[in-house]
């Protein structure tokens, strides 16, 4: 029997980044359906990221994305991408619209893009946020005209005389249909339809008619003088798209082990709703099976989920902003830097000896106030001889936290049931095999109060990594 408390925690860990015991307690008497309604209502309004301003002076035709290839600007841009990264992490931790940020994060991985043009990455991030809970069909059309995506998948080089198939291939393989639902000929033909979709020197989408091939194309069994939008519509008419996208959502939000019957039912409604993302998510979060024991604590949280959860629970902060990036690098997930167009695979691929040790020792770094000893590998464009100035490294590695709220939440709980209570709030999977004695020792040999020490001990358990 899954308790109400556990269900609420499950919802917020999956649809958001977890919530504090205080917030969970305030919802114990609210019905699950009202909580879900409120979750969607809280994500209704949102604001664009405006951290980076448009990099070019107005009417400056000389400098544009094309000229940003100069190395110095690459590196500046790299730094800006890192700043954008920490900006987004903070937003995830503080926004009331957690569902919208979580969905934006999901689409950020689905439409994984990496370009050195920080401003264009911000534009893409805003596009993903706009459609995150909207219509998948609209989102696909928008992302196909997204400047960062066009640059990343070489559609700039996709010209009538020399088609470049990169975008056409990935749009089917990774964004919509999945392998096996199209042929190499479909890729060749549809690449012709996307010819001329490019980015102008100001970094905006531009249809270059001279480079567009307006001849007939034979695509997925149809023939016509299709343009890129026609191709996307033909793709979207296939039910395989709904199955492909729903499967990925199910893996991420419900369980890494897919229940194919359930997914095909969800996919059918998704298709019938003409790809209404909100409707699909609401269907999942209001289903009884979503709260089944087998789906709770069933997945290894991603590094970003872990970091944001820590920020929400104990206000984890890093005096040197680079540390939040070091953490992401050490744990193998850096926002705006996916490994490739297929994104992060997640699940057990997050875990190796070093990343697991780092995950489990974060509470120790926090408690002891020592800096992390993990150093990330240098960026390939970095020249080690002119790496960061000393002052940029001041306090690097230090992680601070504020335990006040959690201490307050548990200070009135009688001591004999305190450990059990804490386990209930911090561990989602079965806790019966956890050795309670381990949690009682003064393991960090500090004068930190016992309450904090026990909570930090629980957060050092492998089970804390499962959400």
């Amino acid at each position, binding site marked *: 029997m899954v308790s109400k408390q556990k269900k609420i925690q499950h919802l917020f860990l999956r649809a958001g980044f977890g919530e504090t015991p205080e917030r969970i307690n305030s919802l114990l008497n609210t019905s699950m359906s009202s909580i879900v309604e409120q979750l969607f209502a809280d994500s209704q309004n949102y604001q664009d990221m405006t951290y980076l301003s448009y990099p070019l002076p107005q009417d400056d035709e000389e400098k544009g994305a094309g000229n940003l290839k100069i190395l110095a600007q690459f590196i500046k841009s790299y730094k800006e991408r890192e700043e954008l990264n920490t900006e987004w992490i903070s937003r995830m931790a503080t926004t009331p619209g957690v569902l919208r940020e979580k969905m934006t994060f999901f689409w950020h991985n689905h439409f994984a893009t990496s370009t050195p043009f920080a401003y264009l990455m911000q534009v893409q991030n805003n596009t993903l946020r706009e459609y995150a809970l909207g219509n998948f069909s609209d989102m696909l059309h928008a992302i196909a005209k997204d400047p960062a995506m066009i640059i990343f998948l070489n559609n700039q080089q996709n010209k009538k005389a020399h088609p470049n198939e990169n975008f056409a291939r990935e749009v089917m393989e990774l964004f919509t249909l999945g392998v096996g639902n199209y042929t190499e000929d479909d890729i060749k033909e549809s690449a012709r339809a996307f010819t001329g979709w490019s980015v102008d020197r100001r970094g905006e989408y531009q249809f270059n008619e001279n480079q567009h091939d307006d001849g007939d194309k034979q695509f997925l069994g149809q023939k016509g003088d299709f343009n890129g939008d026609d191709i996307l519509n033909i793709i979207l008419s296939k039910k395989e798209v709904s199955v492909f996208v729903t499967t990925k959502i199910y893996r991420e939000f419900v369980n890494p082990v897919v229940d194919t019957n359930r997914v095909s039912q969800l996919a059918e409604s998704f298709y019938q709703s003409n790809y209404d993302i909100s409707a699909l998510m609401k269907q999942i979060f209001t289903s009884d099976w979503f709260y089944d024991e087998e789906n709770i604590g069933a997945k290894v949280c991603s590094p970003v989920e872990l970091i944001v959860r820590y920020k929400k629970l104990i206000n984890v902060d890093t005096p040197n902003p680079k540390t939040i990036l070091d953490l992401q690098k050490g744990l193998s997930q850096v926002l705006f830097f996916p490994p490739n167009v297929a994104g992060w695979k997640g699940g057990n691929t997050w875990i*190796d000896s070093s990343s697991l040790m780092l995950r489990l020792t974060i509470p120790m770094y926090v408690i002891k106030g020592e800096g992390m000893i993990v150093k990330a590998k240098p960026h390939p464009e970095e020249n080690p001889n002119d790496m960061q100035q000393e002052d940029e490294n001041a306090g690097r590695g230090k992680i601070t936290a504020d335990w006040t709220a959690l201490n307050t939440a548990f200070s009135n709980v009688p001591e004999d049931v305190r450990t059990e209570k804490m386990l209930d709030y911090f561990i989602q999977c079965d806790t019966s095999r956890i050795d309670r004695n381990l949690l009682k020792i003064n393991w960090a040999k500090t004068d930190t109060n016992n309450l904090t020490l026990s909570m930090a001990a629980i957060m050092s358990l492998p089970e804390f990594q499962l959400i």
Partner: protein
Amino acid sequence: MRNSALASASLLVPGFLKAFGMGKNGLYVPPASTTGKRLVVIQLSGGNDGLNCVVPFRNDLYYRARPTLGLKDDDLIKISDEVALNSNLEALANFYNSGNMAIINSVGYPNPNRSHFRSMDIWQSASDENEYLYSGWIGRYLDATCDGTCAKPYNAVEIDDTLSLSLKGDNMKGLAFSQPNLLYKCSQNPIIRGVAKEYKPNNDHPEVEYLQKTLADTMESADYIYEHSNIFKSSRTYPGGNNFGNRLKTIAELICSGCNSSVYYISLPGFDTHVGQKGQQSRALKNLSDGLDAFCHDLKDNNQFDNTVIMTFSEFGRRVSQNASGGTDHGTANNIYVIGGKLAKPGMYNPMADLQNLDEGDLIYNIDFRQVYATMLEKVLGVDSTKVLGRKFDALGVV
């Protein structure tokens, strides 16, 4: 306490035993690979300009493409009538002349990608250009050894704080640490020690099982590495810059202390030379050469050079022509250096890159990088390379 126990254990190993590659129990400790050999992989990050490392100093096309960047006599060490090495690679020239080094030219893959990230991803995962794999070739080597049942993380070691994709298998993963004592210190956290100590296989919850098993393996590896890092202490000078020297020294000390890892992996950054290449590449190459000089001497002194093969690689070479900033931009095919005490075919393995026939200004590959991997897998590590690479790539007769 542990330290002093190890210190005394180290005193118990007489110098002459150390000299014969004896471990702390006085036993010869070969690497765990079925051949008794070990592989050391050196990743040159950023895209090393191989054309200014192995220089065709009689070829006009080279100097025409690189009017100021082309290396002239003072900057070269001749190794044959046609070929010279960059003078910063002094130790490599010595290896070459003593028959301990092979150069493989024109290594690459079809439809080369010029992004650092993507091309490194391709090299590390050993995928095709249009294929996305989430495991690396050395990780899959661990998977392939006795079907992954006997491998331990420390069988493949990366000297770094984070583990590269190269060492992540589908089931097994290698071990990364920058210093054995830091790894050990981290592993002393009483909570995670306690959890690891109580680990018992639990099939009720596969995710918990996976985390706990990984943790238990990590603790075992941390102990193993710590115990096999202190017996031999190198007294040689390794180059200072950039941690590279210290990390190579750590590998030498592990090997000569009887650690039986089959693969060691290390990165040297700083090869992305778009601007002012000469100074930047010189520093990086000198670092590489001086480091390998000390490293190979340590191995020789301990009779570990003959069973060791070292290979370098980079995510791509650079364009043949220099750019307007005294540097070179991202290119394609590149050369690979293989060093070891007992190579089957030292010297120039195949002809130098063809500067006459270029693909839009880039070198054309004629050896797939996975042929080099197949060579290392079969001849150094003793596994069926198709299990790791997914299909047959012809091994080269280099080692």
